[in-house]
């Protein structure tokens, strides 16, 4: 078991009170597993991925635990996390296009970054060159400034840099959303390649695009309003989802390869609840066509069939 998250609670501090952005997800990630983490904005997917790296000033750790390869990860302790960041848990940030220092040549920036983390640049230089070539970049890019590279090239540089120390867990936060369709596919396939070559052991791919993670992920976890809705192998989530939210979400997404003519899909009525004072019981209740009295009690996130977890009373 690579990653084990239990009942993790992280709230945002605001003047009006705590926003319950991440309210107790419990899940595990197997060795070598690529998990797609899907959800709409405000579902808590970005809060979850950020919590595993660094809590920013507004975020408050409330409870729960994170374990990586059997070691407790002290996410509440900013200084103690330095031992894990970059080396054990690494992230490709959402705006990696602008993640690089514009005043440094890329090679210089990478060297400075590594030295600041106590790694001699010389020891990884060859590996860096090998990996740049692997993602289809000339090592000449190290002599260039970020502004001289296209969006897709910058994205690949950051991918190589984030994984150069072979972390156990990689978090890829919306890495493909700013890219063109054709580059998107190449970058997504590179993530799989990185796992296959054991540059990283396991991976969480955060995205709002379920069809993209279906292409590359082993499993997909769907979040709604700070809680987990469903986790299952990728194919199961697409073909046999059990949670009403997952079902409605998937049936609301148009795709290519289907002729629609005048046929219309339906959206999900309503909008997600505010998390300043989240509703009791199931948080999807207000929008759910199946909701009944028992939904006033919070449904547990249970395994209904092997590897298929759902938080819904109606998911037989």
């Amino acid at each position, binding site marked *: 078991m690579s990653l084990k998250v239990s009942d993790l609670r992280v709230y945002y501090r605001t003047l009006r009170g705590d926003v319950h952005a991440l309210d107790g997800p419990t899940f595990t990630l197997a060795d070598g597993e690529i998990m797609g983490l899907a959800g709409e904005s405000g579902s808590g997917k970005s809060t979850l991925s950020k919590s595993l790296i660094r809590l920013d000033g507004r975020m408050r750790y409330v409870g729960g635990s994170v374990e990586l390869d059997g070691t407790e990860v002290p996410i509440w302790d900013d200084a103690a996390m330095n031992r894990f960041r970059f080396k054990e848990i690494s992230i490709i940030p959402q705006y990696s296009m602008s993640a690089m220092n514009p005043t440094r040549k890329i090679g210089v920036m990478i060297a400075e970054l590594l030295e600041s983390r106590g790694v001699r640049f010389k020891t990884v230089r060859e590996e860096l060159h090998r990996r740049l070539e692997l993602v289809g970049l000339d090592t000449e890019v190290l002599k260039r400034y970020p502004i001289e590279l296209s969006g897709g090239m910058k994205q690949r540089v950051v991918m190589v840099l984030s994984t150069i120390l072979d972390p156990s867990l990689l978090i890829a936060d919306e890495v493909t959303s700013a890219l063109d*369709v054709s580059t998107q596919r190449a970058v997504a396939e590179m993530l799989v390649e990185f796992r296959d070559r054991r540059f990283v052991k396991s991976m969480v791919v955060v995205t709002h695009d379920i069809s993209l993670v279906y292409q590359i992920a082993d499993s997909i976890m769907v979040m709604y309003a700070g809680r987990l809705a469903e986790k299952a192998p990728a194919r199961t989530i697409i073909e046999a989802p059990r949670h009403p939210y997952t079902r409605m979400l998937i049936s609301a997404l148009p*795709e290519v390869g289907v002729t629609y003519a005048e046929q219309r899909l339906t959206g999900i009525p309503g909008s997600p609840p505010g998390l300043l004072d989240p509703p009791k019981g199931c948080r999807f209740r207000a929008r759910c066509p199946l909701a009944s009295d028992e939904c006033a009690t919070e449904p547990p996130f249970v395994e209904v069939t092997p590897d298929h977890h759902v938080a819904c009373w109606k998911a037989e």
Partner: protein
Amino acid sequence: MLRFDRVSKVYNVGSFGSDRLTAVREADFEVRRGEVVALIGESGSGKSTLGKMALRIASVSQGTITCDGTDISTLRGNRRLKDYYRRVQGVFQDPFSSYNPVFKADRVFAMVRGEYYRDVPDAQWRAKVHAALETVRLDPQQILGKYPHQLSGGQLQRLLIARALLLDIDYLVADEIISMLDASTRIDVLNLLGDLKARGLGILFITHDLALGNYISDETVIVHKGSIVERGRTEKVFGDPLHPYTKKLLSSVPQFHKKWEEVEAELKAREAADTRIRDYHLPVGQEPPAQLFEADEGHFVQPFPHGARASA
């Protein structure tokens, strides 16, 4: 009919405008009333420039854009321009920056009234606003009197469409209006475009997302580096793609029911069995002409150097 007749756009770039950049090259297509035309391309393809030219935000360098027979570049004077904007309106990508955060969101309606409907009495105006809001399925109670930050992206975007509808338009230019919205609300805005089409509007739907185009459009136009490479009925372009660029796009879009490799293999197999390809192939090295070749009834493709495969 909103017709693009061999429209080009050339920008002067570089110091003192010494270099020229062709953003759009001889684009030729039309948007009819009661029809959604999807204009699909990646960043830098010139798709937004085409939309801007139709709205007269950018000038046309060569060729003409006509709206029901009138060349829109000849429209001079406030009155004639206003008449044009009564019929053609645009909605853009980012609903959050389309509003002035200092003012209430429904001020966009008041601005339309100030410009176009000064003589309309209050009661009649209110009825008009309510009718427009109803069309975009917004509840006036929930929307009117709110500030932009109190409304969701989907609501703001629908409000902008309602604003356009106040003018009794015939054509709508919708530039990436879905991209900033969440998955569960996207489909509602898309379906709204379908409703407007049924009411007789012609819609130019500009997007980078092939799935959205495939869902809502009747005609599809694929642009690549300023040139139209393929256009035709949506089911033709998506079901029987001819140009290598279209094929490349189709094999890169993630699907739900098929993996990338399967889609790619299918396209390859189809291409191997395709005998029409020699009708529109070019000798290697020859510059593709701007004029498209009609490969099938109403299905046009830009001739391309033969041997340029889906990976090209």
